[in-house]
């Protein structure tokens, strides 16, 4: 099971890769969002903030501050942000719960694939 400190590293590397992409800087213009990422089995909560086209890890955001909430087991969440697993598969099989508007969910899927896709 991925521990809390390891997940922070996963999200920081994800943010580095996100921030290295000129595509994502353009695509996320005007899309300032906080993601609340909850591991139901491990009990940790992390956050990811996207603002002005850049992403950064943030410590556990309050639910009221997060426009998007992702819930799942620690290994699935880590696999998504490591690029080992597309969010589509766990979302469709119910392993990943996403609470957001449908449009935000679609955008998050696109942005994650742009970081890791192919």
């Amino acid at each position, binding site marked *: 099971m991925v521990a809390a400190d390891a997940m922070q590293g996963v999200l920081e590397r994800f943010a580095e890769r996100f921030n290295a992409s000129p*595509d994502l800087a*353009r*695509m996320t*213009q*005007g*899309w300032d969002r906080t993601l609340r990422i909850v591991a139901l089995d491990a009990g940790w909560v992390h956050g990811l903030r996207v603002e002005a086209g850049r992403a950064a890890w943030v410590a556990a955001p309050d639910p009221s501050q997060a426009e998007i909430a992702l819930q799942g087991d620690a290994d699935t969440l880590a696999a998504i942000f490591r690029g080992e697993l*597309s969010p*589509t*598969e766990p979302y*469709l099989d119910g392993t990943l719960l996403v609470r957001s508007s*449908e*449009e935000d*969910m*679609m*955008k998050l*899927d*696109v942005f994650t*694939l*742009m970081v890791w*896709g*192919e």
Partner: protein
Amino acid sequence: MVHAMGDAPRVVSVSLGSRRRDYQGMLRLLDRVVRIERQGCDGDVEEAERRIAALDGNADAIGLGGLDVYLYIAGDRYVVADGERLMRAATRTPVVDGSGLKATLEPAAIRWLAAHGPFPLEAAPVLMVSALDRYGMAVALEAAGGRVVYGDLMFGAGIPYPITSLEDLRRIARKLAREITRLPVRLLYPTGQAQEQPSQERFPEQYAQADVIAGDFHLIRRYLPARLDGKAIVTNTTTRADRDDLAARGVRWLCTTTPIVDGRSLGTNALEAAMLAVLGRQPQTVGPEDFESLLRALDYRPEVLDLAGAAGGSG
């Protein structure tokens, strides 16, 4: 109006679109008349599956509308999961989504417009609202000299990223298409009641900058700005009401790639199903060369309507 014609093949287009757009009529293809009808399922995938199963063995060919099952992009094929499930609902009657024909028909329509159309394509600013479902049209528009902006990310996902080259389109498709096509179709495309909702402007500057707006009509219509003075639309599946709406917004030319039956231009799926019924062949035995020879035999050309002065009327 369907007439009693004992030997006329029966083709049914089962669509995830609104049932308010249903029609029935006759289509002449070469020396045959085909009975053709549309059955909308208002976005209900299970209902579409039941309809297809009920038609299996009771129709000569079935078209699948309101979604694409197969996307062909630069030699790669992507399969839309919901669509594949619907295809499997019939085991005897051939089911087609139009993608086989589309890859031949739409480039032919663009070539005809480039050579004979009433508005220029060469150097024209073109907005193609989505190209992943119409890659053949995208290639043909660029070959005709159009300066094309592809709106897949803008109109498909609300992402402010106009794609400005086929190379960029292919690059993005390689990253996204395989996963995105696994999502439920309602997330990918306006189905059912979403096809009836009033247009809401999105990226209106892209419409304003284009002389020609091309692609899927439901995506075009969903985000239409109030005024489109003097512009040309290249699409299909438009109804009389759609033509009136476009005319009222100032659109000059409406070009549909498919023939008009009962006042509305057919879905490509319906036309492909009609062609299969006339040929009496299974989809896997019909290739681009068959469609090309059929289009030549039909002396194919797109329908071009001049909407100037048509506002308030019904064509």
